[in-house]
Structure formats: C-alpha cells, structure tokens
C-alpha cells in the first residue's frame, strides 16, 4: 500500500504519524515483517554527528558608517581569514580555515587549536567575534580600516552552507607504515595498531535511503540543531560504486550539499574540531526524515550495522598516493564491537562519528515529527543515482610551461 508525502503530512499535522528512528525500526520490521510495518509506519528518522570538512558559513555583516568595501579586501574573524570576493559586506568562512602563521601549528604535529570550525561554533554560541578588515577604499565605500566586535544576532543573514556533508559510507583508516601519522581520520599508530571509522552506520541518513528515493533537492532536514535543507548533491557525489544486494554502497558514495539559517542552530550540534597534525574541521549534526511511501523504502531503513560494509584503507601510502584497493572489508557491527581483523591481526577500532549523538539527533527529529512541528517536504529534483553517469573523478594534471597550454598525449 503506497502512501504520499501529503498524506503523511496530514497525519503529522494531526499528531497521528507513526515515527521510529532508524535504530528502532530494525526491531519493528523484525517483529512485524516489512509488509505490515510499511503499512503502519509513516516516517523513519535518521541522524549523524561527525566532522565534515566541507562545511562553512556566509554572513552579511551590515554596512559600517562610512561604508567599507570588504569585497576584494582582506577580512579576518578572530584571526581566521575569510573569503571576501563578493559584494561589499558578504563574507564566507570555511571550517578548515586557520589563522595565518599560527605559531602553535608550526611544530609538528600542530594542535590546530582554533580555526573556521571553532569560529562558527563561537558565533552560534552567541560569542563576540573580532572582525578586522582592510579595504582599498572607493568613492562609494571610502573607509579603509575597520576593527569591530560582531556577533551572530546583529548580522543580517548568517547561513550555514556545507557543500559536502553526510557521506554515504566511508573508509576505515589504518597505518601500515612504521611511523605515527596524523590524518583527518585521527592519529594512526604504526603497524596497524589502531583503526578509525567515520559513519553512523545503521542510523546514517544516506545509508537508510541508499538509492536516494526520498532524499533529494529541497528535502527539509535537521541541521545543526535548527532546520535546514538539502540544496543539491554534495561535491564528490559518486553513486556508481559497488553495492551490496540491498543497494548499500560498500564504500564512500553519495553526498549532500545542505544549508540552513545559522541563527536557529546551536553549538551542541556544530562543534569545532582540532585534528592533531592535520587541521581544523566542524562536527555537524544532521538528521533526515524518510517518508515510508512503500515497502521497499521501509526495507532500506531497516538496514543494520551487520549489513553495511566499509573498506579498510592504508593512510600511510595508499591514500596519499591515490593507490586504489582495500586491505579488506569489515561491517559496522564489527567496527562498533571495538576491534576488527586486518591481515589476520586484531586491531582496536575507534569512531570519529558519534553514534550516541547520532541516536540523539534521530530521536530529536522523531519528537519534532511526532509533535507536528516538523513537516516533510517533497524533493524538487532527485539526486543522481546509480547509472546517472555522475562520477567522482581525479584531477587530470596538465602541467603549465611558460604559461602556455601543452597538449597531453
């Protein structure tokens, strides 16, 4: 029996929608069977809370008097350089931005104690942030120097805009070399002494809608503690990877570009993160409701950690040098047990994605849908799926000699 999103929204408005988290639905389907559960359940909520480097935010800080053309000038917020190549007072900051010449990061491995991710967290927390601007001055924007405290609530617009979030599956990182390495997957000890992974597995949004049947452009989501939207496929979206019989990608595949009003968000769900020896990023809480329109959609949401596999990748040699291949395949159930086997050796595992917080996101979203305060939206356009031809390609380097183009044979 197929349902529509409009029908589900009517039930949500009446407070009668039947909602489960992506964790709870597993047992519901086990006890009732998929057919019966699909008829009864209206929405399954997913969640994830993990570092997502391609996160950022843009702001309209308002005009000073006299006016200053930040556009084309240089601006820092708490010493973090922001991008100014827009109109006079629109600025953009990315999660991985760090202060120029921060002495704390000069000695390897630097601690990267402050960067764009922390700046976004501070702004969301309502803290005052120091804006320092140098502009070239024009007839219409005469002022050349601006040093002022700013805070989020005084800005005209403050928008979280993340060009790639919510990765559908990810690598498990290990270090085959005999020296310690510092990566975006955390500190990896030599000779495969630890392994790190980064996905909420059975709770993760795109792993519960593996073929993008309901999550698409325009989908309303929980973002950073507020409401946001999927605005497009994320960068590096790569649907055509090997998949399991249930359609779940065996490695990193789909991604989402998301945005939302930063003023609604909270520092509990946007946390600056410092990866020793690597840099700064932002942990982002995302939750996506999946409308149960038919039995197939429901079956996909009932995926368990034991059904989802990830590839073990060496980050000392293979990853930096783009050498394809995997040291083996493990399930999220194994990863979450605390140890996996790599080349026959037992290796302790650690998550970078917080499963406990992912569950919290999914249950907050469940509560909002149940109470009628969060309605589902129809996707305006689907995300490119299997067979769409959308591919994640490497850079084809074409070396520059004397500023001329040379044909590559």
């Amino acid at each position, binding site marked *: 029996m197929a349902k529509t999103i409009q029908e589900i929204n009517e039930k949500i408005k009446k407070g009668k929608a039947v909602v489960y988290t992506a964790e709870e639905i597993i047992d519901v389907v086990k006890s009732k069977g998929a057919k019966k559960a699909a008829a009864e359940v209206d929405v399954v909520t997913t969640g994830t*809370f*993990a*570092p997502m480097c391609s996160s950022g935010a843009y702001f309209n800080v308002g005009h000073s008097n006299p006016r200053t053309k930040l556009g084309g000038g240089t601006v820092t917020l708490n010493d973090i350089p922001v991008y100014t190549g827009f109109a006079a007072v629109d600025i953009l900051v990315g999660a991985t931005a760090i202060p120029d010449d921060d002495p704390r990061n000069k000695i390897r*491995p630097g*601690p990267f*104690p402050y960067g764009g991710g922390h700046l976004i967290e501070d702004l969301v927390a309502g803290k005052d942030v120091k804006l320092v601007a140098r502009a070239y001055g024009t007839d219409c924007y005469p002022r050349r120097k601006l040093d002022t405290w700013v805070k989020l609530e005084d800005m005209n617009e403050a928008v979280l805009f993340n060009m790639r979030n919510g990765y559908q599956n990810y690598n498990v990182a290990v270090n085959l070399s005999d020296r310690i390495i510092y990566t975006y997957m*955390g*500190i990896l*000890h030599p000779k495969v002494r*630890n*392994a*790190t992974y980064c996905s909420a597995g059975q709770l993760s949004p795109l792993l519960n809608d593996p073929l993008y049947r309901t999550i698409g452009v325009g989908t309303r989501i929980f973002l950073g503690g507020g409401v946001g939207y999927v605005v497009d496929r994320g960068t590096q979206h790569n649907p055509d990877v090997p998949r399991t019989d249930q359609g779940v990608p065996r490695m990193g595949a789909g991604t989402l570009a998301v945005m939302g009003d930063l003023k609604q968000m909270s520092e509990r769900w946007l*946390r600056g*993160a*410092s*990866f*020793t*020896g690597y840099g700064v*990023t932002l*942990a982002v809480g995302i939750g996506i409701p999946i409308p149960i329109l038919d039995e197939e959609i429901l079956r996909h949401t009932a995926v368990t950690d034991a059904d989802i596999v990830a590839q073990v990748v060496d980050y000392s040699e293979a990853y930096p040098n783009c050498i394809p291949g995997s040291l083996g395949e493990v399930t999220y159930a194994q990863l*979450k*047990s*605390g140890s996996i086997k790599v080349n026959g050796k037992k290796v*302790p*595992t*650690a*998550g*970078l*994605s*917080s*499963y*406990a*917080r992912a*569950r919290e996101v999914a249950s907050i979203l469940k509560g909002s849908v149940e109470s009628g305060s969060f309605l589902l939206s129809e996707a305006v356009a689907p995300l490119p799926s299997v067979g769409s031809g959308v591919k994640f390609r490497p850079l084809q380097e074409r070396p520059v000699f004397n500023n001329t183009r040379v044909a590559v044979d």
Partner: protein
Amino acid sequence: MPTKRLTFNFPPHLIDQPVTYQLITEHKLKVNILRARITPREWGRLVVEISGTKKNLDAGLQFATELGLDIKPLAQDVLWNADNCIECSACVSVCPTGALSVERKEMHVSFDHDKCIACELCIPACPYEAMQISF
C-alpha cells in the same frame, strides 16, 4: 594489599635524592613508575603505582611528605570534560588501560579515573579538548 596511584612532586632541591629507593628498601613498598619528568632546577614529577601493607604505605608516604614531596592522588590531574565530549570514541583505541571505554550497545563513552595512568595519549587524540591534564 592496598594500591594507590599517586603523583610525587619533587621540589628542585630533592631531585638528587633516591626517594624511590628508600620507599622500596626501607618501607618495603612495591613502586611501579608510570611516568617521570625531571627538569633541572624545576619541580620534578613522578607518577607511580604504589602498593604495600597499609602500615608500610602510611609510613612510607609520611616519610616522603616529611622530606618535602607534594603527594597527590593521580585522579586529580586527569580531567574528562564531559561537556566537551561528543562521545565519538576517538580516544578509546589509543587508551592503553581501558580507562576510556565505550559501553558497546548504546555507544556511550566513559572515563574511569582509577584505571588512568596519565599517559596522555588521549589528549592529542581528542578533537574536542575533552581530555585535560594539569601537568
């Protein structure tokens, strides 16, 4: 036999004294040195696991205190800031004693002071500055 995890803070003038030797030989204590830091003309620091009969322990610690050592329980030095922790578990696989652990069903992270040996491996491993040490 009681066991204590302690930090011995040595004032600069005591750095050349064989205090540990005296604790072992005269007070019959079992001393396992977990960490040591000695810097010329500064306070030195020894993290030890120390065990013996209650009588010997009390006498030994009194001897060290009278000598001028500042002795503190180790647990005071390592702090788990639960508000900063997002329970990602990044620290868990580097913790050698299981002081940082995950309850595997709900995936909640917890810190057990009594198991901590103040090795500091968790500090750079945590992206959220949830682990702090007051060394």
